[in-house]
């Protein structure tokens, strides 16, 4: 394609490249003819595009002759981006929004071993929760945010937790037995949020929702906690708010692909 006669300045080559990259990503590696079949582009224009993509490191020769696969350029870009994405920085605006909406205590937790560590929090306006201060941790089975993490962790971690913490004194009030905790976890997994009515006693309850990365692994959880009668009987829908805040952070980490939710792109792809 000549850039001189293309009014978009060659910008649809970007779109075309993305299509080619996606097709290769889906298949692992493809020949030019297979690519032509899948993208509807003539092989002649694909040759030129692929030679450019190879020069910039976006594709490389595959393991079989004549096939192309994605290039190491993306491996490098991906590694850099992963190191640039900071969970705390991405979650902060959502913590602030939740706090402003509810006036309750907002938490951000990550897993360390079999405990959830609080890496950010904003205190509520009416009560101060003494549990889970900044840098403190709780067993994964307790409290809204920790349980939101545990419910989406691998079966391995869940079993280890049940094995290693059965006598924890705090294990009792939430779930008196491994079976009842397992049940609670599957409820949480099905609902997509952890609802804790009175985990810590003292009339404190809350809602926690998991945050996922681009691989679909749980990397942390956001939660809102406060006096049970305030958090669950107010003018806002706590479950929906916490869930949407966690989803926003997951999206920023690449958990839900932009291309899957952008109808505009599907239209472009169809062209």
């Amino acid at each position, binding site marked *: 394609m000549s850039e001189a006669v293309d009014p978009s300045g060659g910008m649809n080559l*970007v779109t075309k*490249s993305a299509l080619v990259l996606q097709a290769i990503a889906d298949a692992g590696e493809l020949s030019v003819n297979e690519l032509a079949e899948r993208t509807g582009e003539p092989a002649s224009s694909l040759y030129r595009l692929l030679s450019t993509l190879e*020069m*910039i490191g976006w594709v490389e020769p595959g393991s079989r002759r004549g096939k192309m696969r994605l290039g190491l350029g993306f491996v490098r870009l991906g590694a850099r981006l992963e190191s640039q994405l900071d969970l705390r920085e991405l979650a902060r605006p959502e913590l602030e929004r939740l706090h402003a909406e509810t006036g309750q205590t907002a938490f951000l937790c990550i897993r360390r071993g079999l405990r959830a560590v609080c890496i950010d929090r904003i205190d509520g306006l009416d009560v101060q929760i003494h549990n889970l201060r900044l840098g403190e941790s709780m067993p994964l089975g307790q409290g809204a945010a920790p349980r939101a993490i545990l419910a989406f962790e691998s079966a391995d971690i869940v079993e280890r937790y049940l094995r290693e913490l059965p006598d924890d004194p705090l294990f009792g009030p939430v779930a008196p037995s491994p079976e009842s905790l397992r049940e609670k976890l599957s409820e949480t997994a099905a609902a997509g949020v952890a609802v804790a009515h009175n985990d810590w006693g003292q009339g404190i309850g809350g809602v926690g929702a998991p945050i996922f990365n681009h*691989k679909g692994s749980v990397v942390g959880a956001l939660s809102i906690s406060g006096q049970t009668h305030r958090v669950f009987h107010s003018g806002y829908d706590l479950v929906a708010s916490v869930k949407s805040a966690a989803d926003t952070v997951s999206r920023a980490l690449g958990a839900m692909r932009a291309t899957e939710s952008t109808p505009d792109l599907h239209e472009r792809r169809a062209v």
Partner: protein
Amino acid sequence: MAAKPIRVMANSADLLNALADRGPLSVVDIAEELSMPRPSVYRLLDALQHVGLIGLRDDGRAQLGTEILHLADAAVGGIPEVRAARPAMARLNERTGQTVYLCALRHQMVACLDWVKGTKVTLLLLNPGGTLPPHAGAASRAILAWDEPLRWHVTSAAPLQKLTPHTLVAAHQIEADAVLTRDRGFSISDEDVTIGVAALGVPLFDARGELRGALSVAGLRDDIVPHQDDYGALLKEAAAEISAAI
């Protein structure tokens, strides 16, 4: 093959590389970095954002888009050596606690295809997609020891680039190291890339006996050098397992 890449794609690559190296950038920064007029930058950003390769932050700066993460996963997953090496790499990491690298030769450089980070420190010098010259680092020197044409090519360019005072730079040093490495069965990189960091590397061959890359274990010098015999044996074991799977 065309002599030059198509300009809009070359600009796209330059932009993504700048965002990778410098983090989020404003339109003004990008215009300067790419020597492009601002209206062209806006058009390029718009096109790249549409396909998810960049994202726009609330503050208006551009950053790498999350689609990159999926393409990176697909790129890594598309390399047969990576798939074959994963279980053995995870086990090596579990048993040593150190960073485990899988590397292969790309355009006369040794590129990191995949890694499992160490439990204690994250090594910053070599990341997935990054490269080292073939004369420095454990994976490099393992490949170099078993790849004679490459060694000839490398030594004919001596004196080589000195990364630290311990980097092998003379042809006779390279040849002597290759003999030692082949005798021992693994390479020892002791502060030749980064001061304070050491690594051990073994070559990876496929079923036909062709050299496909190298596997290495790297970490702080005190966590590697005293354990070189144990870790060397674990590496050889892992390499045999991976070779059988390629």
